[in-house]
């Protein structure tokens, strides 16, 4: 017994419509005999069987459209290759001796049940050969009826907007996508569309205004970023006011880029002059940097509701440990407290992840890594915050090495691109400047800034005893939109606790 299956009749054929059986159960067939007519997108084609034997059950009725490979009939006879189990078995089980199709009952049934059966159905085509034999035939009324019926079914098939759906958000995928993109909470909107649906316009109205994008060439943007210049503060002289690299250089050099007259004959000269002098104009660079810092800090203070916490931490254990570790080390290899403070700041952020990340689109987005921006003051003035990535994973010695290298290169203007981006939390240490506490300004879009002052000796009471201990004041400036004071307190407490077990840092 073997299955006669829907054949593949062309390179692009995925399914075919069985138009007509040319054999009946019980007929003897030979390999190569034409047994059925199959309609493809191109034509009706007589198809042959590949086994000799007797036609058994017909599994698919004329008019059904089935995928290539679907068993259409059983041929019983000499052949030994079995019907593929599964597909054919199931189909045959559906009705012994009764042709069954994917969705198509035999024609008589179809007419009888037509009106009650809303299931989708392919219009039954007339067999081509039959039409050819009887060219005088007019289209059958039943067909026209079927066509109308199928149109009706199509309308019914559309999902009715239910009351529940329209009273809720009722926003389509496009609108939902837009809302997500623009950071709009759909449940807070009142829809103005039909039936109260939320429309695109509703979302756009509700979205916070976007800051105008600065028109700058890709290279100018990259250059400004590398030089720590806010491209928004640079006056563009390019096409349509675009900021070009020359403008960034000029802004850095003169600090008066914004006041520069319109392009004049001397500009080409200026441009080349600027291009030749990137690295040895540190003092001029500060002007541009000053303006960049001004813009950024103003933005931060304008936008971010800061709150501040402070605590003083006993560093006796840390210093003891450092002394032991540094014993016998060359001065250049010695660990300093700053490395431990950084590590503690990172591990505490691991415990209080709501301080490590960004405030974006009115929501806090936690960062997946702890990348600390380390504020570095430059000798000629100004400030950079190069980044040490994944500080929580670095042993103190490695962290120390990174820190020294980074500070040196930051001061020489030799930072790599990856070292200037990606900070998730910034630490500033003004201890070497002699102050005891620093209350910093958060670097947006980060949500906190940790400050350390100088390590100083102070009288310290512990367990009812007064002694002299090395202490440091740790501070936290945090974004009140993202966290409240209790969270900040937990963070500083964690820093303290971590520093009491320096060997575990």
């Amino acid at each position, binding site marked *: 017994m073997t299955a006669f299956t829907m054949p593949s009749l062309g390179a692009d054929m995925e399914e075919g419509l069985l138009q007509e059986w040319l054999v009946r159960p019980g007929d003897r067939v030979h390999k190569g005999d034409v047994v059925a007519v199959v309609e493809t997108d191109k034509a009706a084609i007589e198809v042959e069987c590949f086994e000799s034997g007797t036609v058994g059950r017909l599994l698919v009725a004329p008019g059904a459209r089935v995928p290539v490979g679907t068993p259409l009939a059983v041929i019983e006879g000499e052949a030994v290759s079995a019907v593929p189990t599964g597909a054919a078995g199931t189909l045959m089980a559906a009705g012994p001796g009764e042709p069954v199709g994917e969705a198509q009952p035999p024609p008589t049934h179809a007419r009888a049940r037509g009106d009650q059966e809303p299931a989708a159905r392919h219009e039954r085509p007339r067999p081509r050969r039959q039409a050819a034999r009887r060219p005088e035939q007019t289209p059958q009324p039943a067909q026209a009826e079927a066509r109308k019926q199928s149109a009706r079914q199509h309308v019914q098939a559309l999902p009715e907007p239910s009351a529940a759906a329209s009273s809720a958000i009722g926003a389509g995928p496009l609108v939902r996508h837009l809302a997500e993109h623009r950071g709009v909470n759909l449940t807070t909107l009142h829809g103005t569309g039909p039936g109260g649906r939320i429309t695109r316009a509703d979302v756009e109205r509700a979205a916070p205004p976007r800051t105008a994008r600065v028109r700058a060439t*890709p*290279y100018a*943007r990259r250059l400004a970023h590398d030089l720590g210049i806010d491209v928004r503060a640079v006056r563009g002289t*390019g096409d349509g006011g675009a900021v*070009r690299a020359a403008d960034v250089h000029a802004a850095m050099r003169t600090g008066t880029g914004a006041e520069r007259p319109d*392009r004049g004959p001397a500009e080409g000269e200026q441009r080349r002059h600027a291009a030749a002098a990137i690295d040895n104009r540190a003092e001029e660079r500060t002007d541009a940097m000053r303006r960049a810092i001004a813009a950024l800090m103003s933005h931060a203070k304008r936008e971010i509701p800061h709150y501040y916490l402070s605590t003083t931490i006993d560093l006796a254990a840390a210093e003891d440990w450092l002394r032991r570790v540094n014993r016998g080390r060359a001065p250049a290899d010695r660990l300093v407290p700053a490395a431990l403070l950084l590590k503690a700041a990172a591990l505490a952020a691991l415990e209080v992840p709501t301080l490590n990340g960004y405030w974006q689109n009115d929501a806090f987005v936690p960062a997946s890594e702890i990348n600390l921006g380390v504020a570095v003051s430059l000798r000629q003035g100004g400030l950079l915050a190069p980044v040490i990535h994944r500080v929580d994973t670095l042993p103190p010695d490695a962290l120390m090495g990174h820190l020294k290298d980074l500070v040196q290169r930051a001061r020489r203007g030799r930072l790599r691109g990856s070292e200037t981006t990606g900070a998730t939390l910034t630490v500033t240490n003004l201890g070497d400047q002699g102050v005891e506490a620093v209350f910093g300004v958060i670097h947006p879009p980060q949500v906190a800034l940790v400050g350390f002052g100088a390590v100083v000796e102070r009288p310290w009471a512990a367990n009812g005893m007064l002694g002299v201990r090395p202490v440091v004041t740790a501070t936290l400036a945090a974004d009140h939109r993202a966290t409240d004071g209790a969270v900040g307190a937990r963070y500083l407490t964690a820093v303290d606790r971590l520093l009491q077990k320096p060997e575990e840092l």
Partner: protein
Amino acid sequence: MTATRTRTAGPTAPGDRKTTYREAMREALREALRTDERVFLMGEDVGRYGGCFGVSLGLLEEFGPDRIRDAPLSESAFVGAGIGAALAGMRPIVEIMTVNFSLLALDQILNNAATLLHMSGGQLPVPIVIRMTTGAGRQLAAQHSHSLEGWYAHIPGLRVLAPATLTDARYMLAPALADPDPVLVFEHGTLYNASGELPADAGPVGIDRAAVRRAGADVSLITYGGSLPKALAAADDLASGGISAEVVDLRTLRPLDDATIGESVTRTHRAVVVDEGWRTGSLAAEIAARLTEQHFYDLDAPVERVCSAEVPVPYARGLEEAALPQVGGIVAAARRAVGEPAPTETGTPERPPVTGREG
């Protein structure tokens, strides 16, 4: 069918390095024919006529009609025959009079030469060299003047060369013949008469890399073939205005040497691509796309293109000149790129529309 009847004197005396592009080509052919008996030259009027542009003049006398083989005007048949001969172990050099005529052989070039190696699962490499004249500038009108090398550079399986200098004319043929795959050589018609000193230490050359023909700092003029002299002239002009232009000669149009192009633009941050093909879908478009893909953050200005106007090349001199990239247009594009457009009567010149004309 012939275009111009250009005849020049015979080969220069030995030791005399003063030469022309045409003579350099002929010298390359002679060398190939002398050193490898599998090499033969086949094409329309390559023998008795001496080549439509005089490149093969005198070779028939030296190598005979079997190896300097005049073919009937059947581009498809003789290009296909070249492919078949290459399959059978020969090293044919097939000459097609102009790139416009090569369309009659496009079936053979694309469906056989470029395809056989892959379609046969690596069994059939096709070591053929097909030379043809390309480009406008000689008032030959719309069926002898087009620059379709960009089309051929679209096709995987082909290597496409555009020798633009005397050195490349003289030395590119040898590595092309050594390549186991089909190589198309596009010789710009305006270059044949170019003359100069062939440097004593010239050659051999490779066919993989582009070459910086003039170093510069402010803008890269990226070009090839017949547009190279124009780009170099434009660089001179720009230099007098204080703009330092680098000129990159692509040399090999497929595969493109991304490294050399990118290295140049990474330094200059501005690119002007000069291509005698039509702008739409051109080689210039490909290069511009690659620059934005690979060097977006190095670009300090939009990539400029100076291409032919989107018109069949016309006959009248004024019209033809207006249709082709010219020094003035290259200079203007370079100045736009560096942000110093030359003042004009009507104010700042606009970048021409995509399908518009440019001078």
